[in-house]
């Protein structure tokens, strides 16, 4: 059976599934329940200087599918609203009771060395395994000069990271905000300052929905709403890209990454790992289903690794990074065509109409015995994949590469490119 034990920035945990800093890790009761359920580690809900913040009532908004499945969640909560000392005492107790689990504590403070250093030293005294710097919260806290207000300025990311590194011997993970132009700038800043790892993404700035009766963004607080932080399944693609950017960029390559954003299944986790993450953090999935979901995350990842022959997470981590390239490095001569399996087809006609209305008019309908037969016209099909994605039956439409025996040619070298660099290395 695959070994799921994981180490990031020197912090060990029995499996790579941590709970992200958020309500699931807000206090002892939750964290004990999480550890009993099997989570490998937690990042404690962000702590700040006393007095604690005060939250508003009505805090979450949701992006739901028509069948009420949660696609994304948004929140306008601030950091921990409990006294610092209460949190620290609970951290001491939980770490003592669960010594094998990772206990990382998230911090946020104003742009002042004594604030960050003071918090770091207090946490170090608890016996916690490490720190995570919350430089990402895109609502509320940023209006007080914290969270994303710091994370959006690379120089400030670097400065805060240095202050904390100087104040503690604990590993420091810098949590990055996605609400920036280029994730590499803040990742490089963290690396320059000696961060032991980065974690990403924090929530995406958003208005998740509008209450059409009160005519206000949700969550509605007495008739008004504010922008909030978006997370859950919908943000996974954004997070994957940012993780991959850091993993493949020469300046940041090798910086350990804790992958966050929409992890809901073991498969999501495997994808983050493949793109270079060392472990993953989860918030929304736990807030949607409770802590028990970690069982299938662990079991599913383990079974899949066995099936694929990966014995440790190290063997898996980063396996897909070399295949993430710029568009200009793709093979212009590659061609793939949709193929429909008539035995699996249930006759819904969706592939035809989407190709007909919105793509390349490449799916023909013939009248078969009591049902329609759908066939891809190879000459028209550009291999866009649309039909294979929208077909309701798994594996009914597959994409089959053509054997055209053409060489790998990228756009810069393609004869059709008017800006083509004349090929120096022509054979």
């Amino acid at each position, binding site marked *: 059976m695959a070994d799921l034990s994981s180490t990031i920035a020197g912090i060990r945990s029995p499996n790579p599934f941590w709970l992200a800093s958020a309500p699931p890790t807000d206090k002892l009761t939750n964290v004990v329940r999480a550890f009993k359920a099997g989570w490998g580690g937690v990042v404690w809900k962000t702590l700040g200087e006393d007095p604690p913040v005060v939250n508003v009532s009505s805090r979450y908004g949701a992006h739901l599918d028509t069948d009420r499945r949660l696609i994304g969640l948004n929140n306008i909560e601030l950091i921990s609203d409990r006294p610092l000392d209460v949190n620290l005492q609970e951290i001491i107790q939980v770490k003592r009771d669960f010594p094998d689990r990772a206990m990382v504590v998230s911090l946020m403070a104003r742009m002042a060395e004594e604030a960050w250093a003071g918090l770091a030293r207090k946490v170090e005294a608890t016996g916690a395994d490490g720190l995570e710097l919350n430089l990402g919260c895109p609502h509320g806290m940023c209006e007080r000069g914290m969270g994303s207000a710091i994370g959006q300025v690379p120089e400030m990311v670097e400065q805060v990271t240095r202050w904390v590194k100087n104040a503690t011997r604990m590993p420091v993970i810098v949590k990055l905000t996605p609400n920036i132009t280029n994730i590499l700038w803040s990742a490089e800043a963290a690396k320059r300052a000696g961060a032991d790892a980065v974690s990403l993404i924090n929530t995406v700035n958003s208005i998740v929905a509008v209450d059409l009766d009160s005519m206000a963004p949700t969550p509605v607080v007495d008739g008004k709403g504010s922008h909030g932080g978006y997370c859950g399944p919908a943000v996974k693609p954004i997070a994957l890209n940012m993780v991959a950017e850091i993993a493949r960029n020469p300046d940041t390559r090798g910086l350990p990454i804790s992958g966050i954003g929409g992890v809901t299944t073991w498969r999501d986790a495997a994808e983050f790992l493949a793109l270079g993450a060392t472990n993953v953090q989860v918030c929304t999935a736990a807030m949607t289903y409770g802590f028990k979901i970690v069982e299938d995350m662990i079991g599913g990842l383990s079974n899949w690794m066995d099936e694929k022959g990966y014995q440790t997470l190290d063997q898996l981590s980063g396996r897909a990074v070399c295949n993430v390239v710029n568009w200009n490095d793709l093979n212009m001569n590659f061609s793939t065509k949709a193929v429909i399996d008539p035995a699996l087809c*249930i*006759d*819904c006609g*969706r592939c035809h109409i989407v190709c007909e209305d919105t793509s390349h008019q490449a799916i023909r309908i013939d009248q078969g015995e009591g049902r329609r037969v759908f066939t891809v016209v190879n000459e028209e099909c550009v291999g866009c994949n649309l039909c294979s994605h929208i077909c309701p*039956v798994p594996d009914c439409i597959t994409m089959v590469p053509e054997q055209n025996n053409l060489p790998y040619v990228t756009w810069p070298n393609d004869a059709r490119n008017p800006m083509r660099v004349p090929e120096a290395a022509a054979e």
Partner: protein
Amino acid sequence: MTLIATLPTEDRPASPYADLTPPMTPVQALAESNRCLFCYDAPCVRACPTGIDIPAFIRSIATGNLKGAATTILSENIMGGTCGRVCPTETLCEQSCVRNRAEDRPVAIGRLQRHATDRLIDGEPAHPFPRAASTGKRVAVVGSGPAGLSCAHRLATLGHDVTVFEAKPKSGGLNEYGLAPYKMADDFAQREVAFILGVGGITVEHGRRLGADLSLEALRRDFDAVFLGLGLGGNNRLNIPGEERAGVEDATAFIERVRQAPPGQPPAVGRSVVVIGGGNTAIDAAIQAKRLGAEDVTLVYRRGRAQMGATPWEQELAQTEGVVLKTFAAPKDIGADGITFERTRLVDGTLAGTGETFTLQADMVLKAVGQKLSAEALDGLQLAGGKIAVDDAYRTTLAKVWAGGDCVGSGEDLTVQSVQDGKLAALSIHSHLSA
């Protein structure tokens, strides 16, 4: 025969008039509507005699646009409420649903249809289809059943003035008098009639029967067009000894009695009831007798289950309700307290008696062996196969006279087919009147 139902009241349905299939809850409708794949040129639509845009209305349910869903349904089928309740969906739209192919379970189109239309019919103050400017043309519609009302409604929206002549004291035809109460609970037929008439421009005259004070000739003279939605007034007979005995009754008459009984005072049924026939009406009557407290209800059909007009789903429903199905037995003689059958079998597709007989005890016998057109007062109209002959545009052989519904041979004798006939005949009449 003495009629005393004996089934312990504890084992009877709370009300024999209650919905057999309850309406969907909003949560059920949400879950079920999300199963629809929004098919292109959907097979279910092709299987609906009225061509309702099923994926469109189901998507509207899923997005919370219930009014839009109802309007989509009613624009093709003004009796979408009744059809959602009584259509044999398992042989129509739901049989064609692509969800059957991989999952063996279609989208519950009929129940969703009821869900959408109920809300509009119960709650919407304004009629969803406004009338066009008056054309000044007057159309007579004979019969206020599904064909007649569908035709009248469509004509009214197109700006014509319609007078409906109805023999019975209430409108609705079979919806009011012929469908089992458990399909049309809470007086739905009358609520639907009120909704349909809400469009305006339709006057219903009750107690007006063709052949009594009403002649086809006069109608043709006094109106710009005439539509006949007469239904099938006559019942086939068994033509066996004892058919006139007390306790022997047409199933349609029995259902009519049940439907028209004052609430809380359903008519008495026998202890042992035998229903003869194999179609919807036979099933309706058998289930209804059972729900009213009959101890034994046996439905006897002279052919096999595969040949029954009732769908397999209906047959199973009857069995679940406690009706015993007996096949390959033809009635021979009705005695004082029993009815004698001869066993039959199919020889090369033709039914043959075997000579072997058996007797079922019965204190109530319900005959459901088919209905037929009562052809009196139809002078001058050509018939075909015992029904009024019409062309593709629902024109009869008499000028200015159209016909549709069960009295013509357009398709199966189903409510939904009658609604379609009425709608298409109205469009045909309209193009004639606008020419």
